């Protein structure tokens, strides 16, 4: 029994990290259609903010979360205004531009904060393990799971039940007709991009106590995030939730029975096969192009 529970918990923990890094990407791509290759760098910047606030100002991680969200959201907003906004109808150019931005951000961090690996202290109140149905798990990992689900719920709520969400859905369906009805789509895009960036920053801050913080850390997460979003279906929030859950549980299980190298290979193989037969992803919304 405790084995089953601890295996499920391990999978959930993997899923929660996937969900955190993928959510921002899913929001941005789902609404604006921008393939943001600098997404991993937003995650990295979030982790560096957590590190900086802790070492320079002595802030605990929990107290830094909201400021980090705001900081990275502002950065996302600026990037949208300065770069992305000019490239909305040129998908190839946005890929190149965001990739270039990512490289620049990486090097700026390397030049200012240094190339050394960093770490962030775990909040003392959460650095212990707890018992759940006979299985032990790290309290911090459960906390990350809780935050990931809460963020998902918040995003879902904004998207489905607020008037802003209604406008977003209208824009997603057809931007020009939505604009004809008086929706300020430029503003909606800007806010979406800022929100997505903020969530990515938050993801980086939350995973920083578990991983090493380095200028290159973002590149692995952007791959994971794309995997989740592509599998889930690019315009479906629910798809992102389900696919991160699936990927986390499956890779946790495979890693337990074989090892992480095999697990990674098998999961990628499964995604390739699924995409071959269901290119729109598991949950596709019908959208007019």
């Amino acid at each position: 029994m405790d084995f089953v529970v601890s295996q499920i918990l391990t999978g959930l923990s993997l899923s929660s990290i996937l969900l955190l890094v993928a959510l921002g990407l899913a929001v941005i791509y789902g609404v604006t259609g921008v393939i943001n290759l600098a997404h991993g760098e937003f995650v990295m910047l979030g982790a560096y903010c957590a590190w900086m606030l802790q070492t320079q100002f002595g802030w605990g991680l929990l107290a830094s979360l909201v400021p980090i969200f705001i900081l990275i959201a502002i950065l996302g907003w600026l990037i949208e205004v300065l770069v992305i906004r000019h490239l909305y109808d040129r998908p190839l150019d946005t890929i190149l531009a965001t990739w270039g931005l990512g490289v620049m951000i990486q090097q700026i961090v390397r030049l200012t904060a240094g190339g050394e690996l960093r770490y962030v202290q775990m909040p003392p109140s959460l650095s212990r393990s707890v018992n759940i149905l006979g299985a032990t798990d790290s309290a911090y990992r459960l906390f990350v799971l809780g935050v990931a689900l809460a963020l998902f719920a918040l995003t879902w709520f904004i998207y489905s039940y607020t008037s802003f969400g209604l406008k977003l859905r209208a824009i997603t369906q057809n931007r020009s007709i939505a604009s004809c009805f008086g929706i300020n789509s430029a503003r909606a895009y800007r806010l979406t991009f800022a929100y997505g960036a903020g969530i990515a920053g938050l993801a980086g801050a939350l995973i920083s106590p578990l991983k090493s913080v380095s200028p290159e850390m973002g590149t692995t997460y952007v791959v994971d995030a794309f995997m989740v979003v592509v599998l889930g279906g690019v315009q479906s929030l629910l798809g992102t939730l389900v696919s991160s859950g699936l990927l986390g549980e499956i890779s946790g299980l495979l890693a337990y029975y074989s090892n992480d190298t095999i697990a990674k290979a098998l999961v990628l193989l499964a995604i390739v096969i699924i995409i071959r037969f269901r290119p729109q992803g598991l949950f596709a919304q019908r959208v007019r192009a």
Partner: protein
Amino acid sequence: MNNNRRTFLKAGAAAGAFTLVGFPHIWSKNSSLAYAQGGEIKVGVLFSLTGTTAIIEESLNKATIMAIEEINAAGGVNGMKIVPVIEDPASDPATFAEKARKLVLSDKCVSVFGSYTSASRKAVLPVFEKQENLFWYPTLYEGRECSKNVIYTGAVPNQQQDDFVPWLVEKFGKRWYLIGSNYIYPKEENNYVKKLLAGLGAEVIAEEYVPLGHSEFSSVINKFRSEKPNVIFSTVVGDSVVALHRQYRAAGLDPATMPMASLTTSENEVAAMGGDAAAGHFTSAPYFMVYDSPENKKFVEAYKARWGSDKVTHFVSESSYFQVYLFSQAVAKLAASDIGPLAIRDAVKGEQYKAPQGLVKVEPSNLHCWLRPKVGQAQSDGQFKILKQSADWVEPNPYSAYPDQKCTEEGLKQI
């Protein structure tokens, strides 16, 4: 016919010898003056200053430069200054080979100090073997190499494990979990540890490899929990080692009953993961920053004075430092006209030096070094506590996991 041929050969050899004795200038001037010109000896320094391994290789570059500066400040080698030619191979094996070629062919360096990863060493090896030059490699590595153009000053598996593994078995127990990054170094170290464990009657309950750069260890930690090994033998490297330690600690596992034993976790890695995550785990290495010797005190003080008081020294920077001294001792034995890569190699055989870790010696047969392994336990202040030292220096055996092979002065021999 046979006789005639023999006489002819003898005559030829005599003529050759006569040429060498009779007109030494023709030979020695051309070749040696290129290496020791105008009171200067040029050496290459080949550590990545950019790219993924720059963090650690920068510290090796610093230790090398510091040793060269010290030797020059003390009057140089027989009055000649050592002049470093510094190149940045950018953590890329292909660039390593290209820069090595430049240092050897166009800069005419008499030796090159450099590289950290096995991949980069393998990339430069053909350059030094083909050009008959000399490469000085400071990193601990997996062994199984017998080049006559490399001086290896880092530890090989038998030097780090012979004392360490039996001590851990006695102290903690016989159920061992082997976890490593998925490439050659961990596999070779594991080949040797499995051999040692079999001899001790201990059991390997799992041998597992994670991809390089892997940072999610929750499944692995789950297995630690259910398998309950006595010792986790970790050859995980790079940023993965930080993630593994931090997640181990977050999971609430206890190093007092299930410690991780590592051959690569130095002060440098501990600084990257935080003392709290490293505390209680063990490392075997020839050198720790806290080691108490007059030579080490001088080394650490000089290093901090030169590069900053927050800097740490570790076992690869220490060997980067002492190998320059071995080089200068070998050069000092040679007449200026004789200085050349192979002459230096032959002169350094059996050479001894009082390094920060203790007296070390170059083994003439395989060009690796006799070193003084120690066992350290990481403390929460980021330093190690030395719990055990080998009674004497330990002979290097790069083929310790392969008893039918031996590295000799003539090259690799099958036994």
